[in-house]
């Protein structure tokens, strides 16, 4: 469609948008009497790891600093997340991290070079959790089972996250990111939202909110901040790049819902990557700053008819859809002027733009036509039908049960997998992604080493691996460049080496 080589007028200086997505899963230990979610989470991870890995390699916590704030100071009264070093923590041969975080099993995909690769690893993460349930249930007494949900709320005021991570240019002032990403985050929910019955915000009941667009909006109270477990901010300032800190920043995005729809996960990653690339390249207009972003975030979430217009700081009123159209139009122009190499190439970049446009057009003219692409719309169709059929009220426990079962990962129970959601991924690719790392990032080096030399690796984390090759001391290999250590760089070398000692010799470290 676009003759890109001819028309790119300004080569992009943006950092390649490496992406990853990390999901905290809901966990239930059913028919067990007294059960403890930390123990259950540990059990489910151990069951998988013991069955699937030759040897467990632990996480290396040396580089974890979740208290560092991108704004350049450390708030002493901010409750920065603690690093819980004693809990179960494993690295998988596909480069993912699978661990217990705050009483939930959590799986972080490996680093990916584009949204398609990342949604494939996200779907692989679901398969890993499904396999984990099966493995754990084999070990439990008859009648007990562990049940995993891919959602963000228990409906009782407790929330857990699905976080996205994007590599951006360190040299971009953080304030620029905040200004231009904030309106995007406040409004993208109209096509990213996973939907929820009712509201968990203080003072609101079913008579105020039958259902809403997101799982998470109720839990956000600040515009910008470091916290992740309370007073959650729309833009999180955690500054732990796990990469060369002079070149890179990792934007840690906590506002998203966990999606069962692959189209939504794909688009969420792809469109946000493009917007961040524009910010890297400083191709940004006058910002569409909302007057009260947190209030607007909730107003958008509660407005399932997409009818409202929200107040901007300059006094204008715009709907969430209008704001999204502005971002899309800007993205189209950016694609023409700069190309989309930084999000994985023009083919995937333009596919993202085309799907984003289709989403917005459909939201405008026939939202229910998106029932096979957008979780909240699929739910709306289902719940309205259910309410009509059974003559119940919106605060009926049956609807709450539906709302949970939509996200239940047990294959015989999962409602999302019964309603004909469109696929983006391919089952064969997902199968490979369960065990094999992406070939295009440093996750390749990590995953292949773990697969080939598990006995010689002491610990691993995002930006280094620690080897024990018999000598004294242990050898740490830094991996500060997310695009180094790929199949192209080290594939043949890894094929050739018989052991880690030889690998380290030949790497010259």
């Amino acid at each position, binding site marked *: 469609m676009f003759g890109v080589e001819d028309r790119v007028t300004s080569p992009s200086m943006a950092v390649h948008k490496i992406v990853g997505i990390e999901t905290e899963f809901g966990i239930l230990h059913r028919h067990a009497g007294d059960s403890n*979610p930390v123990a259950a989470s540990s059990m489910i991870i151990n069951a998988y790891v013991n069955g699937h890995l030759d040897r467990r390699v632990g996480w290396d916590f040396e580089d974890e600093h979740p208290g560092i704030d991108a704004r350049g100071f450390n708030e002493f009264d901010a409750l920065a997340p603690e690093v819980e070093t004693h809990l179960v923590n494993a690295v998988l041969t596909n480069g993912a991290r699978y661990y217990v975080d705050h009483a939930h099993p959590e799986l972080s995909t490996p680093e990916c070079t584009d949204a398609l690769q990342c949604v494939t690893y996200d779907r692989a993460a679901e398969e890993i959790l499904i396999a984990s349930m099966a493995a754990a249930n084999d070990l439990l007494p008859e009648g007990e089972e562990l049940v995993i949900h891919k959602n963000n709320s228990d409906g*009782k005021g407790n929330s857990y996250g699905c976080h996205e991570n994007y590599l951006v240019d360190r040299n971009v002032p953080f304030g620029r990111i905040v200004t231009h990403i904030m309106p995007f985050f406040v409004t993208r929910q109209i096509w990213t939202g996973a939907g929820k019955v009712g509201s968990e915000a203080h003072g609101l009941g079913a008579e105020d909110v039958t259902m809403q667009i997101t799982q998470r909006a109720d839990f956000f109270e600040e515009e910008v901040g470091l916290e992740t477990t309370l007073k959650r901010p729309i833009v999180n300032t955690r500054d732990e790049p796990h990469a060369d800190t002079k070149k890179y920043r990792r934007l840690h995005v906590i506002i998203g819902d966990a999606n069962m729809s692959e189209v939504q996960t794909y688009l969420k990653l792809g469109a946000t990557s493009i917007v961040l690339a524009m910010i890297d390249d400083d191709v940004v207009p006058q910002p569409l700053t909302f007057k009260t972003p947190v209030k607007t975030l*909730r107003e958008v979430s509660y407005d399932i008819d997409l009818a409202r217009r929200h107040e901007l700081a300059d006094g204008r009123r715009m709907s969430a859809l209008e704001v999204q159209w502005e971002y899309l139009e800007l993205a189209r122009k950016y694609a023409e002027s700069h190309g989309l190499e930084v999000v994985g190439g023009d083919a995937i970049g333009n596919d993202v733009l085309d799907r984003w446009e289709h989403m917005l057009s459909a939201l405008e003219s026939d939202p229910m036509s998106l029932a096979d692409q957008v979780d909240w719309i699929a739910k709306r169709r289902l719940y309205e039908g259910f309410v009509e059929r059974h003559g119940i009220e919106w605060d009926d426990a049956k609807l709450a049960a539906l709302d949970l079962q939509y996200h239940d990962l047990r294959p015989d129970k999962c409602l999302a997998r019964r309603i004909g959601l469109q696929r983006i991924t391919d089952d064969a690719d997902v199968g490979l992604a369960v065990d094999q790392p992406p070939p295009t990032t440093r996750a390749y080096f990590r995953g292949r080493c773990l697969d080939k030399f598990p006995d010689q690796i002491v610990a691993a984390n995002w930006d280094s691996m620690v080897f024990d090759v018999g000598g004294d001391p242990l050898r740490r290999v830094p991996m500060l460049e997310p695009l180094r250590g790929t199949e192209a760089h080290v594939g043949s070398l890894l094929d050739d080496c018989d052991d880690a000692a030889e690998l380290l010799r030949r790497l010259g470290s």
Partner: protein
Amino acid sequence: MAEREQIRKPAPREEETEVDEVAPSETGQELKAELDDLLDEIDDVLETNAEEFVKNYVQKGGQ
């Protein structure tokens, strides 16, 4: 916050195509039948004691 005011829908964009009127008889019935089938299926797999399942679904706060 969750006010139920009547808000006029924003004006459509210039390039927006005409919305076709959905033929009320056939497509509407097909869609309804499809939804009915789906609801039947869901009735079969829905957790038998919804209230208890929902009551027991408690999570610790995460990030």
